[in-house]
Every structure is written in C-alpha cells, then in structure tokens.
C-alpha cells in the first residue's frame, strides 16, 4: 500500500484522551492545594500554559479559572509562575472535602 506524503498525518497530533484510567488519577498525590484569588488574577494564562497535568480550566468573561482537583498533583508550578501572586498553596488537610 502506498500513501502519498500529503496524506500522512503530521507527527504528534493525536486527539486528546476521552477516557479516564482509574489507576492514573493523581489527585491523591497532592499535599498542597492551589487556591485562586480572583481579585488579583489578570487572566494572563501563564498558569494554564505551565500546568504539566493540564489541570487548569480557563474561565470566560463571567467566571474565573478553576483547578481540576481530581488530577492536580499539587506541584506548585502555577504558584511559581503567577506574576501577580494570585495563586497560593494551602495545606491539603485544611480542607475536609
């Protein structure tokens, strides 16, 4: 079978996974939970770009960004990159949920 080179898909472009693997849920790795101060947030999206687990959902005009705590490992990169200090890390056991 021959495939013309124009038909070959560009390398690395795979659809994002649609199914969850229960063994790969990483929320229980977290020792510190990121908390957003929506007043300070400038929606620069640096945290969204930097998050290694894609656990930050961008808000729109009416809502601020949220964290996907099912997968957030609490690495703290969002806290490090935030230029205005809008994301703080709070010990996970301060929350009862």
């Amino acid at each position: 079978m021959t495939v013309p080179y124009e038909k070959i898909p560009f390398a690395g472009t795979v659809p994002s996974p649609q199914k969850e693997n229960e063994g790969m849920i990483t929320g229980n790795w977290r020792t510190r939970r990121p908390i957003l101060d929506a007043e300070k947030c400038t929606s620069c999206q640096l945290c969204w770009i930097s998050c290694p687990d894609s656990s930050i959902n961008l808000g729109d005009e009416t809502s601020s960004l949220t964290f996907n705590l099912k997968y957030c490992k609490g690495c703290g990169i969002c806290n490090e990159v935030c230029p205005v200090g809008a994301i703080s890390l709070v010990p996970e056991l301060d929350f009862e949920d």
Partner: protein
Amino acid sequence: MTSENLFEEPGLKQITVWARGVYENKEARDVVVALTEAAALEGKHVQAWENYVDLPDRIYVPVRAYGKISDQVIESRYVYENEVPDIVVLTEETLVKGIDILAGIKPGGVLVINTKRSAEYLLKFIKKDTLNLSRIVTVDANSLAKSIITLSGAEGATDASGIGKGMGAALAAAVVKATGIVEFDSLLKIVANKSAAKKAYDQAVVYDYVKTLTKVI
C-alpha cells in the same frame, strides 16, 4: 488474597510505611530498615524491602516500604507485599486522604502519623478499617529532623547517607514507643540521628483507640 491465610505465622509482625515519592523515599526505607536491624540485634528473623509496584521516582506519588520481624524463621519470605500489616506508618499527614492506607490491617493494629495535627482530626479522613486499630500515634517528626533527599541507598545500592539520618529515625522511635516491637536501646544503636529518636520517643502522643480515642501517654 484467598480467604484461607496461607502464611499464618503467629510470631510475625508486618510493618508497612507509606511515604511520598522521591522526597521521602529514604525516610520510608529508613523506618523499616532501622526497626528490622534493631530487631536483628535482638536475634529476631527480619526482612526489609520496598514496594516494587509503586511508581518509585515520581515526586509526591504514594510509595510503600515494608518490614517483617519474627521470632521464628519467616515462612512467607517470598511474599513481596505486606497483605496484613500490624503497624502502618505515614511519613506525611496528607496520606490519610484519598488512599486506603489501612488496607488489610490486623485487629489490634497500630497507626503512626508524622503530623502536627490531632489524631481526632486525621481520623475523619480515614474511611476504611479504622475499627481494627488499637492505637494511634502522632509525632511531629518534621520539627525534629529533616527529610534527606538522596538516591543513595535506592534500589538495593549502599546507603552512604546513613540509616536513620533524617526524620525516619524519629518515626521509628514513635513506633517503638507505641508497640515495643524492639527495645529502644537497640534502635538507638542503629539510627544515626540519635537526638531526633530520643526526642520523638519523649514527644510522641499515643492514643488508645476503641471506637473513640483516649490519650494514654
């Protein structure tokens, strides 16, 4: 596990230590190695090893280290996970949340937690098997010694940093205080950080647990 216990050994005590990957790997290993080496000094049969199934080198991933101490020859020496632990140790308090840390714990089991918080508060997060517990111990090991972050001693290599150099020594001392599994003097001969072990032996708070908590020491 089958309903029939193939390896029922009356003299055998199993120790399971839960820790966070990479930055507490050595401390988890040190707790079991210090306790088993101390038991070996007393002429017991011992084993200490780490869980091979856990993802060992990812930061914050829950990992386990195991120890076995027995009066007799350990028949189940090739069983590579502790399925029915007697003692469970957490090197970090957040491990109570979202992880089945007490899985398979025997009736009369002991839980040791490295924390500043109260045992009452932490118990709220543990959903399963708490009725098998007889004692809960809290000790603030982080205030007594640091966690040593090193790959020395990982995967069977020689540990150049010394057994019980960090806060693992304090946790091992808390285990000894609550269970008396070895003599405290034997433990002191093994661990490098003797001052942390002594302070933890004094400061560890021991609670008896029979459906509710009672502070005893």
